[in-house]
């Protein structure tokens, strides 16, 4: 059978008419059914997807189809799609139907992407293993005893298991890149302000960013080019024009200057095989004519603590709207306003979400604000300044995406701090607001994939994607 795992391959099949959007969609629908045990999808939008596929097939006949015709894409369950459920994998939003579409969904549909369903994730995108979903965990397609990573675990597993071409995830502290590393796919977090957050269920507004999970860099480029750019509904999106990434990545790769952070490579928590792999890769790149230099980054130990202070603060406020009053879950035991709040929220939110709401409420509270929130902001500013300094001299920073490969279910559950440290290499990009990508370059002796992460300066997605493509092609 002809392969059409990627949009690239599907486009060829569509143009020689060996396949149709409908046949591709049907293939994926049956794959989803076969791989149900993974827990990747919370809901398959069969009806609307079939209608859309037929519509795109018609358009293809008349040559009027959009740029993403043929693409079958899944949404993380925190991305709003009008008339469809969006639950953020939480009881508190179970059966909540969105009244509007997010900007990214509008843009995908306008370019004729087929949205196949919504994918499981950690509740409100809070987690690194997808174990925090109210609707069950997501299994790693490479080893079902292991986690898919999180929080975009369902999206990533769906792509890795070939249940769709691509998926959208969101990345607040690594939620696209970390599962991409665990499941062996390409996961990209764009620059903060590159993609609209309108219609994305907010976790931490100044960190959240939507990005693609794909099997190849080409597909990531095609999707980013469509979903990115200025949006009147999100004032934090940059008005910088969106380059044609899919064309940019076809240009020849010039020699680049790569920095690596000594403290990361030497980090005691880093799996030695992953360390060796990254070191070898750096050596190879140097040998190929790129500049490779070690740099100091003095804030490594502060990345995760500052991240959890700032993101939980924002989350505690962002999640206040789930109060049982206007929409979502209301406890049947509620009898007045206060009990509506207390019971609905206690019953509706899972334990990790409650932990973070409490932590965030604490760091913002009177008497603790200066000690925690203000300090966190200062640390973030220092990280941003230092990162800017690095990018004044280098094109990229290369580091591992994760300290290890996918762990077994329950391995980190007893110790939230241990779980939080899974984010140590990924939160840097979210603090700094820079684009970062995880590339499925590594294969561990335990049989599991692992990713290599590359970070670039603000809005340098084009060069980041091009370099990523050259790395994957030479892998």
């Amino acid at each position: 059978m002809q392969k059409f795992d990627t949009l690239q391959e599907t486009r060829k099949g569509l143009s020689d008419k060996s396949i149709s959007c409908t046949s591709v969609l049907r293939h994926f629908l049956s794959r989803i059914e076969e791989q149900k045990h993974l827990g990747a999808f919370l809901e398959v939008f069969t009806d609307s997807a079939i209608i859309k596929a037929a519509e795109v097939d018609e358009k293809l006949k008349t040559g009027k189809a959009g740029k993403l015709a043929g693409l079958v894409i899944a949404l993380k369950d925190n991305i709003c799609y009008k008339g469809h459920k969006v639950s953020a994998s939480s009881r508190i939003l179970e059966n909540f139907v969105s009244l509007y579409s997010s900007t990214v969904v509008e843009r995908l549909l306008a370019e004729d992407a087929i949205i196949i369903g919504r994918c499981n994730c950690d509740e409100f995108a809070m987690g690194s293993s997808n174990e925090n979903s109210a609707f069950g965990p997501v299994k790693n397609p490479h080893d079902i005893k292991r986690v898919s990573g999180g929080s975009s675990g369902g999206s990533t597993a769906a792509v890795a298991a070939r249940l769709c071409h691509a998926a959208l995830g969101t990345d607040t502290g690594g939620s696209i890149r970390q599962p991409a590393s665990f499941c062996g796919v390409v996961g990209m977090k764009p620059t903060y302000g590159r993609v609209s957050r309108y219609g994305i269920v907010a976790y931490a507004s100044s960190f959240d960013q939507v990005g693609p999970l794909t099997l190849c860099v080409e597909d990531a480029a095609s999707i980013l080019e469509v979903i990115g750019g200025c949006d009147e509904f999100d004032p934090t999106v940059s008005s910088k024009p969106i380059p044609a990434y899919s064309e940019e990545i076809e240009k020849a790769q010039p020699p680049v200057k790569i920095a690596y952070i000594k403290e990361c490579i030497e980090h005691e928590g880093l799996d030695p095989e992953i360390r060796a792999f990254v070191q070898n890769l750096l050596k190879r790149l140097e040998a190929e004519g790129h500049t490779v230099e070690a740099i100091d980054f003095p804030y490594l130990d502060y990345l995760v603590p500052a991240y959890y202070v700032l993101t939980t603060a924002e989350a505690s406020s962002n999640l206040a709207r789930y109060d049982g009053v206007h929409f979502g879950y209301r406890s049947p035991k509620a009898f007045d306003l206060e009990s509506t709040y207390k019971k609905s929220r206690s019953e509706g939110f899972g334990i990790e979400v409650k932990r973070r709401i409490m932590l965030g409420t604490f760091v913002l509270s009177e008497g603790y604000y200066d000690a925690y929130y203000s300090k966190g902001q200062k640390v973030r500013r220092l990280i941003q300044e230092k990162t800017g300094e690095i990018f004044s001299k280098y094109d990229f920073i290369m580091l591992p995406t994760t300290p290890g490969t996918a762990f077994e279910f329950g391995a980190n559950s007893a110790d939230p701090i241990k779980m939080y440290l899974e984010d140590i290499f990924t939160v840097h990009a979210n603090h700094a607001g820079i684009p970062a990508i995880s590339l499925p370059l590594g294969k561990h002796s335990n049989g599991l994939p692992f990713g290599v992460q590359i970070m670039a300066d603000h809005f340098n997605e084009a060069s980041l994607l091009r370099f990523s493509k050259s790395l994957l092609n030479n892998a």
Partner: protein
Amino acid sequence: MNIYDKYETVIGLEVHIQLLTNSKAYSSDSAEYGALPNTHVSVITLGHPGTLPKANKKVIEYAVRLGLALNCTITRENMYARKNYFYADLPKGYQITQDKTPICRGGHITIKDKDGNERVIHLTRIHMEEDAGKSIHDQDPFDTLIDLNRAGVALLEIVSEPELKNADEAYSYLSEVRKLVRHLDICDGNMEEGSLRCDANVSVMLKGSKTFGRRVEVKNMNSIRNVKLAIEHEIKRHIDLIEAGGTVDQDTRSFDASKGTTFSLRSKEMANDYRYFPEPDLPPVIVSVDYIEKIRSTMPALPDELFNKYKKELHLSDYDASFLTESKTIASYFEDLIQKTSNYKAAANWMMGTVKNYLNENAITIDQFPLPAHQLSALIKLVDDGKVSSSVASQTIFPALIKDPGQTPLKIAETLNLIQESNTGALQELIKEALQKYPDKVLEYKNGKTGLIGHFMGEVMKLSKGKADPKVANELMKKELEK
């Protein structure tokens, strides 16, 4: 000595003004008052998952306008902040407001104390925020109903320094605020509908004391008069408590207009910790010097400036000047009028007399007044030219003109045969005729009974059928009698 005289009062006011923007502060929903409940509610107003705010630029413009009018320093880099609390009419669970960077700082409002002396009340700040929805407790026997039409409507909060000394000053301060915001066209100032709201912070201390007493905050006063009553009640309550050996609890209270008293809403211990932090969904708004200057150049003359102009340049009385500057519409009509006539005193008299009476009798405002300023100035000219007397102008021509605003005053005067005689030749004849009728009285006059001139004038007016110009006739009469 009265025990109440032993104390002095310290009052600070927080005034919320609802802005007359078409759309809400952070969404494009209509901000109009009075629509059916929950009809101006998009997903943004409802705070649905994934929605984001978008700052309405008009709010910034209005804030700058108010700030300039009150001599505030305009903040160049404006950050938004979230104020977090749970309430059923606050769909997001937080209010978007400003914390550390209010758009206006400093500034002042000039009020008059009860002796008519000017007092400058300093302002702490003015910041931009959004309104909450409305909780309606009295329409359903069991449930509270929520109307979110108001949720997200733009507000400015004006915070005064604690410099007001009594309820009268608070009354005067609020009146000034209302006059100004109406004049600037940024708020309709309607306290009953809640588009202007006031919270009063009140404390008392022994005269000469340097430490403030315990402060209470009083809310829910829906008229300027009620603000005054609530403050008076609080002052008395505090002093009575202290004199009886008690202490004032630092609480938030509500005014009960039907009883004229206040009751506690919540104590200090129950006060919310609002956990302010920078709003991550809205980038800072930079207000440039150019922008500020652009707004300054489009500012209307302020009531204070007009008041001083009317007094100093037009030599009008305090009373006249304050009437004419009380509302923006009256002021702008008058401004128009004095472009067209230089008889300012007459212009003021017309406004204060005939026009005001007409408006009152017909229960209309000046915008509904049928005569444009040029008609009124033509009427003033008719009097000034001696063609009609001012009483004929106001009692006869004015009503005729109202009925037929297309006519000119002169035409009406001619049609009704009201043009008065100021032709000295013709008048001379009439005077002679009048005097000839009363030779005895002429003699009496010449012997010192000068009061008789009124009698002769009456005769002249009668002979002229009321058309004689009294001023001219009077002078001619005197000359004739002195012959």
